[in-house]
């Protein structure tokens, strides 16, 4: 694998095909937790972390199920293995690093079956990425999610000073903002190479 191709994969996952703004994955936490900057960045970090775990699990499961010729079990296996691995890691972090747990812990159970996480597993299998590619893809997707999250939180913090119509408060105004951000992200379309 050439470095340039891996870099392009990363940029593609993070900017050009941003999980939130181009694929609409992980919208629920995006709308829910983007109210404040600090919780948004923590959520982003937690999602990146879980994506990495999910990607590693999915790579292993895919190898095993291909050998066993039981591809139809893939979806069920992804869900169960990813969820239980995240639980294990959560317990491990709680024991070994309380500070890290403070930062990530709250969000870990929330995001184990988040669609963005599952999508990393499904996409890398569909596009038959190798091991290194999978890891890079997961990191890129996580970075993209964090970026979108932090941008949105920043805007929403500013917005609190603005006059938003009563009816548009909450979901509606956040969706409009996400639409504008999504249009802005389309400007990255040229830099990532083919999808």
């Amino acid at each position: 694998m050439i470095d340039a191709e891996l870099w392009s994969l990363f940029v593609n996952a993070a900017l050009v095909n941003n999980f939130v703004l181009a694929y609409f994955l992980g919208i629920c936490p995006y709308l829910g937790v983007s109210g404040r900057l600090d919780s948004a960045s923590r959520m982003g970090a937690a999602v990146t972390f879980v994506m990495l775990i999910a990607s590693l699990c999915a790579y292993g499961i895919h190898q095993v199920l291909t050998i066993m010729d039981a591809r139809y079990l893939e979806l069920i296996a992804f869900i169960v293995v990813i969820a239980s691995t995240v639980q294990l890691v959560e317990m491990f972090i709680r024991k070994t690093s309380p500070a890290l747990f403070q930062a990530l812990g709250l969000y870990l159970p929330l995001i184990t079956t988040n669609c963005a996480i599952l999508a990393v597993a499904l996409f890398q299998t569909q596009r038959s990425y190798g091991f290194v590619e999978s890891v890079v893809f997961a990191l890129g997707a996580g970075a993209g999610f964090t970026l979108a999250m932090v941008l949105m939180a920043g805007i929403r913090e500013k917005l609190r000073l603005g006059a938003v119509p009563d009816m548009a408060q909450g979901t509606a105004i956040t969706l409009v903002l996400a639409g504008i951000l999504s249009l802005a992200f389309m400007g990255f379309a040229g830099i990532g190479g083919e999808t």
Partner: protein
Amino acid sequence: MAESLQAVVPATGAEQFQAGLWRQNPILVQALGMCPVLAVSNTAVNALTMGLATASVLLASALVISSLRRIIPAQVRLASFVLVIATFVTVTDMLIEAIAIDVHRALGAFIPLIVANCLILGRMEAHASRRPPTAAALDALGMGGGFVLCLLTLGSVRELLGNGSLFGIAVMPAGFEPWVVMLLPGGGFFALAGLVLAGRWLSRTPARQGVGP
């Protein structure tokens, strides 16, 4: 969240069915299951397929989980729900692949992603796991119906404005300039924002239900 959802569970069967359609509409009011709504609503056909697939998974899982509600231990209930849901999603995925391969290709990874739809897990936790099968089925039908309606509205609007067609048939007059933005991801966000606003506008006139934040 489970408590607040449970507190407003209506009593009779008909009310239960209607609640999901409008008053507690999963998308407009509860803002659940947004990801597939935005991702596949660029044409009416995709939106309808996705809506029906989600609704049938919801109904089938609700029936099974509600029948098994005394057997499933409380400690592992979420894992059991996910297993049941994932099974039905796999079945639906294969079914769509067998019936309509084109739509299956267009929807791509979003059919398996029904598993992660928080609407389904939410209904299982808040409703199906505590109710007899008939009540659970009615609730699932209502919620599923509300979901399909929203998805179909969104898909039709986006296809109409973005492509000038409906279900693949051109309906707009010849001079119509398509709004390409509606087919792009940004258009999905704008259309859903419009739908949520319209929903709030319409439900504002009767006595406020105290819904939404």
